Structures are given as C-alpha cells and as structure tokens.
C-alpha cells in the first residue's frame, strides 16, 4: 500500500464515525425506557386497547310443555375497515353467495357457516376484513302469539323488552351486561386471547309460562 498510515488513519476515522453512531443507540433506548416510558406506554395502550359492555344473553320464553317461543340468535356480518380494493372485491364475490351491500362499512349481512369459514381462513391475507357478531331476538312463527310475547329493542347495548311478556318480565329475562377489555390490531380487529373481563356478564334466566302452546294459541291470552 502506497500510504499505509493514510489507510490506517482513514480506517480509524470510519470506525470512529460508526462508533459515534452506535453511541446514539443506547441514548435513544434510554429515553424510551426512562423519561419517555410512561408517556409511550400510555399512548400505545390507548391506541391498542378497547373496553366496552358485553351484552348478557337474554333468557328464553318457554311454554309449560317445552316449546320455545322467544330466543336469541347470533348472526355474523362482514365489515371492511378500508375501501374495497379490486382484488378484495373479486375475492369476496367468489367467496360469498350473495351480492355485496353498498353500505359504507358493513359489506355483507348474515354470513352462512360456509362463508364464515372461508372468510376466517383468509383473515391473514385480508386483515382489513372484520367479522362482526350481531345478536337478534327471534320469535315463534305463529303470529297469533306476537302481541302476547311483545318485542325487544337494543337500548344502551342491552336487549330490553318494550312490550308484552318481554317488558313485563324484563328483569328476569335481561340479565346484566359484562364489561370487557380487549386489544385491537391496526384494523381494529380483536387480537386472539387478549379478551379480559372486568366484570363477567350475568345471563338472563329462562321464563317458563304456566300455559301450554295449545292453550296459548286456542285462547287469546293477555300478558
């Protein structure tokens, strides 16, 4: 080498540059684990955690002879956190049996078991898709009993009876909502195994009527 000392000097200069760069790293880490820790953790937790009310399962209404007149049923809707890309749209068109909804967020209502399974399998590929459960109160098809049974409505994240038997025995049927805390990903999906209960929901009790189905349909029974 023509100028060995020059090479050596330059090697040390470069080493010093990298050494100085390396020194910045512990300083930066020190900020996050020292003075900036509380603020960083709080901001991150705020971004990632969500708490809310978990509705209690409303009790069923059952006749003396065991016929279920009112019960809860769970449906699954599909939501998309971002506008649909052409690729995602073509995937959904092939995976789902019906047309997509034109609504802004909910793109499909009432997934069947097969559709649910297809969407669940592609959750990693399309994290922007979210399967949202929805609970609905269902009643026996016999329309003669509908006035007697009454109706329910969602009020403050609680299924509340607003008429008929549903209203009369609301305290027995409704139960008490639970409070949960869950972690969300950037698409606001719940992260597996992150659900923690602050208060567990207390489910409603089933209501057993003194009448049989035949008696109820034969005579006009009033609540």
């Amino acid at each position, binding site marked *: 080498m023509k100028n060995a000392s020059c090479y050596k000097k330059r090697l040390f200069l470069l080493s010093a540059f990298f050494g100085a760069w390396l020194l910045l790293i512990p300083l930066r880490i020190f900020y996050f*684990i020292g003075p900036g820790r509380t603020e960083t953790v709080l901001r991150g937790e705020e971004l990632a955690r969500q708490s809310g009310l978990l509705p209690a399962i409303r009790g069923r209404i059952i006749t003396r002879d065991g016929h279920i007149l009112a019960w809860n049923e769970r449906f699954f809707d599909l939501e998309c956190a971002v506008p649909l890309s052409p690729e995602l749209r073509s995937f959904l068109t092939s995976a789902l049996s019906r047309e997509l909804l034109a609504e802004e967020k909910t793109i499909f209502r009432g997934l069947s078991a097969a559709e649910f399974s297809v969407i669940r399998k592609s959750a990693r590929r399309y994290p922007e898709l979210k399967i949202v459960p929805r609970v609905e109160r269902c009643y026996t098809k016999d329309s003669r009993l509908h006035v007697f049974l009454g109706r329910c409505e969602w009020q403050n994240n609680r299924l509340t009876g607003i008429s008929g038997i549903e209203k009369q025995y609301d305290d027995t049927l409704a139960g008490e909502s639970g409070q949960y805390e869950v972690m969300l990903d950037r698409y606001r999906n719940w992260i597996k195994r992150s659900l923690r209960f602050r208060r567990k929901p207390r489910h409603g009790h089933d209501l057993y009527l003194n009448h049989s189905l035949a008696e109820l349909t034969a005579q006009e029974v009033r609540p």
Partner: protein
Amino acid sequence: MNCPKLRTDTAVLLICAATLLLGIWGILAIVTSQAEHTEPLRLAGRQTVFLLTGFALLEMIRRIPFDFFRRRKFILEIAALCSLWALPIAGERINGMCGWYRIGDFYCQPSELTKAVFLLVMAITFSGMRNDWRRFRAVLPALLLWVIPLVLQPDFGTASVYTASLFCLYFLAGGSWKKLCALGMTCAAAGLYFIYRHPYIQRRFIGLYTDQDPLGAGWHVAQLKLAIARGGWFGTKMDGAYWSNAYVPLAYNDSAFATMLETLGFLGSLPVLLAGMVLIYALIALALQKHLRRENRLLIAGCAFLTAFQALLHISVNVCLIPPTGLTLPLISYGGSSFIGCCVTIGLALSAATEKSRRNN
C-alpha cells in the same frame, strides 16, 4: 493512534464465535416473536437449518485460498450481476418488491448473496488503481451496475447499504474528500428525488416525526417505541413479548432488535450489541494486518463496514431514529438469504485474512 493488536488466529476464532453466538441469539428472538402463533417453532426450525448451512459455508469458504476467488472474480461478477438484473423478468414480487427468486418452497434474495462478490470486485478494482481520477471514474459504473437494479426492485435499504460500502471502500482506497463529498451530495439529491417521487417514503417520514395517522403511517414506529418501552431495563419473560407477537410488524425480521429489546430489556440486549462489536472489531483488526495485500485489507474492511452499516441502520430504525427501511439485522433476523449472505461475506473476508499466514506456513 493505537492499532488494535490481535493475532490472526485469535481474530478468526472471535469472528467465528461471534457469528455463531449472534445466530443462536437470532433463533431465540424468532422463537420469542412467534410464541403466540399457531406454529411457534416453524420459523425457528428453518432458521436453525439456515444457521447450520451458513456456518458450514463460512467454514468452507474460509478454507479455500483467496487466490481462487481472485482468479474467478470476473465469472463471479457476471453471475452476481445477472442474478440482480434478471429479477424484473424472473423474480417474485413480495410486499411490492421484486427482489426474490422462488426455488420450490424457498425464496432466495440475490442482493443478500451478492454482497460478498460486490466487495470482492470493488476491493480488487480499487486496489489496482493508483490514480484518484481513475478510482473516482470507477465509482459511477459500479453504482450503475450494482445499485440501480436494487433501486428498480425497489429496495432502497439494500441500495443504501451497497452505496455506503462502495463509498467506504473508495475512501479507504485513498479517494479524495472532495470527490467523496460530491458523490455523497449527488446520492443525497437522488435520494430526495426518490422521496419526492414515492409518496410511501414520505408517509414513513411523516409517521416518524409526527403523531398524525397513528393507525396508518405512524403505526410501525408507534409499535416499535412501545415494544422498547415495555421491555424496560430487564425485559419481559421469554414468552411475554406480547407486543412483538401481536403488534410489531415483521417482529422476527425487520423489527428483530425491537423484539429482542422487549424480551431481554436494555441490559439483556447489551451482550448482543457487544458480540456484534467484537465481530466488527476483530474484522477491523484483521484489516490492519500489515502483511496482507492491499485488496485483501480493503475486502476485510469492506466486510466490516458493510455489516456495521446494515446493523446500525436496522437498529436505528428499530429505536425510531430513522424511518422504516425494511432491512434485516445481520446474523439475527430471520431469513436464509440474509444469514447465508452474511456468512459467505465473512467467510470470504476470513479467506482473505488468512492468505498470507497460509503462505507463510
């Protein structure tokens, strides 16, 4: 100015030990980052295979006389350049980057494997030139041939590693300050142009320096900060790196250092940094061996600075000093191409370092 004094054998032993140790730490980091997944040991198992293959290759290349590579420089250069330039035709696009070849179930990233050839070619080229203008003129074709295919992928992180290594070699070979500054400014201008042309790079800067859009552009940076903050001084338990499992994007790869900080904490990650420093120190000590040829010394120094630059870039991203680049942490991050590429580069440097000793023996 004191010169680090290390016997060649000791330096080689230190380098091999540090490589193996960092590789094992990498596997532990991968296990931690996957603890909550359905197959927690899948990636770690693959990385163990890569570690064994890489280390075997390192040992094999170390034992091959450096002259073997010197004589085949042209063939190696052509093969490496072909593998880089053929990517737009035969490569696979993953995450918007056309930088991989698919071989059965495996993906191979040629830009990781060609680093050794790049250093070999540039060290031989620069060492044969006494005139600074000739040396300066050699930089431009090197940038065009080696860096442009990386920019076209687009893989700006690896492109910056190649460019920085080229500048280091030029500087060590005796390049003038002024010309180096001119080159640096030209590259900075090109970088600014690319930032202007690619909105996704602008978004990364916005995400780093502002709190706007925390669920979009700022997501990666926010999760890295939180993983470090959660780790604290002593870290969480080995299976408690919850944030890295759930939130940190590519925790086993692009965010490997943040995962390590969450698991081991600041104090626990110091030995990893120390092992990396030992590796670089031993390489620099070898690059100062006076009995070696000029090209050998340049190659060893190039290997040291390339590895150091890539590691520091990765760590700087992970501690939120610079926006995310998508670079792996050498020898630690998951990835066969990255690990084997590092081992090949180190093996070549060791082959260059032991050449004279072998001749003496």
